[in-house]
């Protein structure tokens, strides 16, 4: 082989490898998008026809009767999220502030490790723990138990995002406030947290979107309910639970309702994510 031809071969080989590499990465990228596309396609195809006014305004009908809706599950989910927020937001945000502003290196390392482990714990575990701590003790499934399970899942998520965005606030702002004779806690609340507020809210919304779709931790805490819940110490309906119950049922009508419920749930979570995008759009230009 002459020098010239070997170089030409080499060049061709490199071209092939290059084309192969870009093709593989392109296919992988497509595969990333594909599930979301498929999910939306299926949900629209199977559920869109059942998403109607009645779905948002009516209670479920008894078995065998056509029609009805999931208004109790939608409202139930919102109630559960509100209760979960009441637990998860204050603990998560304040814990994140502690990590970023007060904690010693050793305490922080431990806290971060625990939070990261909790973030990796399967969500059903939170349900089991709350079942043991609350449901057994108070002898009944309840909205409180469901909200607590979701709230506990939110804590480590919010904690870590809050810590990260607070650490992004340049030290110059803390110094500027302290140099005005402002007390430390006021500096943290009115200067640091205010500067990081977009990021903190983003973390909260992402945590809400995550637990909004959780089913497993609600199975033995909130339990589900086919009627209105008028008492938070009683079982309560939730959209993911209702979808689960309807999807494993043998009735076609319920299957359609389950598809509709899934479509509404995914759309809701999608909207939260869009909101997060809008909130974080200016991130590179503003400080946080």
């Amino acid at each position, binding site marked *: 082989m002459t020098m010239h031809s070997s170089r030409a071969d080499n060049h061709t080989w490199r071209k092939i490898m290059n084309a192969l590499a870009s093709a593989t990465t392109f296919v992988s990228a497509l595969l990333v998008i594909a599930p979301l596309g498929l999910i939306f396609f299926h949900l629209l195809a199977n559920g869109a026809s059942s998403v109607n006014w009645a779905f948002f305004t009516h209670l479920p009908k008894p078995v065998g009767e056509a029609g009805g809706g999931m208004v109790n599950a939608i409202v139930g989910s919102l109630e559960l999220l509100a209760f979960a927020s009441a637990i998860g937001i204050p603990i998560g945000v304040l814990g994140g502030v502690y990590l970023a502003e007060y904690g010693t290196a050793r305490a922080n390392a431990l806290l971060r490790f625990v939070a990261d482990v909790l973030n990796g714990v399967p969500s059903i575990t939170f349900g089991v723990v709350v079942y043991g701590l609350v449901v057994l003790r108070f002898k009944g499934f309840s909205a409180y138990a469901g909200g607590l399970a979701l709230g506990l899942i939110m804590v480590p998520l919010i904690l870590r995002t809050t810590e990260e965005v607070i650490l992004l606030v340049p030290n110059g702002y803390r110094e500027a406030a*302290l140099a005005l004779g402002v007390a430390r806690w006021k500096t943290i609340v009115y200067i640091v947290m205010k500067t990081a507020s977009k990021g903190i809210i983003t973390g909260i919304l992402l945590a809400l979107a995550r637990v909004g779709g959780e089913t497993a931790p609600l199975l033995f805490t909130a339990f589900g309910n086919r009627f209105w819940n008028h008492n938070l110490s009683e079982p309560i309906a939730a959209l993911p639970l209702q979808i689960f119950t309807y999807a494993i049922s043998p009735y076609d009508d319920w299957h359609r309702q389950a598809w509709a419920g899934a479509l509404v749930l995914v759309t809701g979570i999608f909207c939260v994510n869009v909101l997060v995008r809008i909130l974080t759009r200016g991130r590179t230009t503003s400080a946080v």
Partner: protein
Amino acid sequence: MVNLIMASPDPAVVEHVERPAELSPTTEPAPPLTFQVKNVSIWYGEKRAIDDVTLDIASNAVTAIIGPSGCGKSTFLRCLNRMHELVPKTRVEGRVLLQGEDLYSSTVDPAIVRRRVGMVFQKSNPFPTMSIGENVIIGLRLNGVRNQKFLNERLEKSLRMAALWDEVKDDLHKSGTSLSGGQQQRLCIARALAVEPEVLLMDEPCSALDPIATAKIEELIYELKAQYTIVTVTHNMQQAGRISDFTAFLYMGRLIEFGSTTKIFTNPSQKQTEDYITGRFG
């Protein structure tokens, strides 16, 4: 540290600095004194950043602290309002008296010290979430002042003193970060003045500014000394010559020489001072 305006080693410039006529010919500051710093040493962990510094800071005068990077200028400045304590594991020995009161006495709240001794930083840092107006009065607000009329008066007064009022009076609601670099620094000065401190510490306030903005700040410093005691750190020797009445030269944490700026720049008694000022090192 970024220093846009580097000191040029040209002694001729220094010699022809115009001195205010009223400057006393004595080399040591005469009473009234704002600060009396007595045998102060500061440690960061094991490292000694300031080594047995003793000097007096005269009231209603500008005292400049010069010296090469890492000599402890900023640390010294920050020990005057206890800002260096924000770094963990710092330790101070010796005494710093502000109007005769020991700043490091156990009964003194550092927040009160900082209200009396304001500070302007190297990098302008207006709060990005606040408007120009809010930036100026935030110190008062967070210290519990609610009276809106009082706040408005103080807002205008502080901006006027910082020579910024005419430029921003119609844009008080705009974001503080929308201003130019020099305006932002004057906004930070207005913010520091609004809480009515007795002293203004300035940590290289012009090092990130262009010459025109620098000239404005220097002019402002000259005007402010009628009402405030000013201590400034600078990398720029001509600037120290232009704006200060007294100059302290720090090197490796030690005070090498301290005296009237005229004396330090024209007839330093220490060889190291002369070498630094003439640009032989640093």
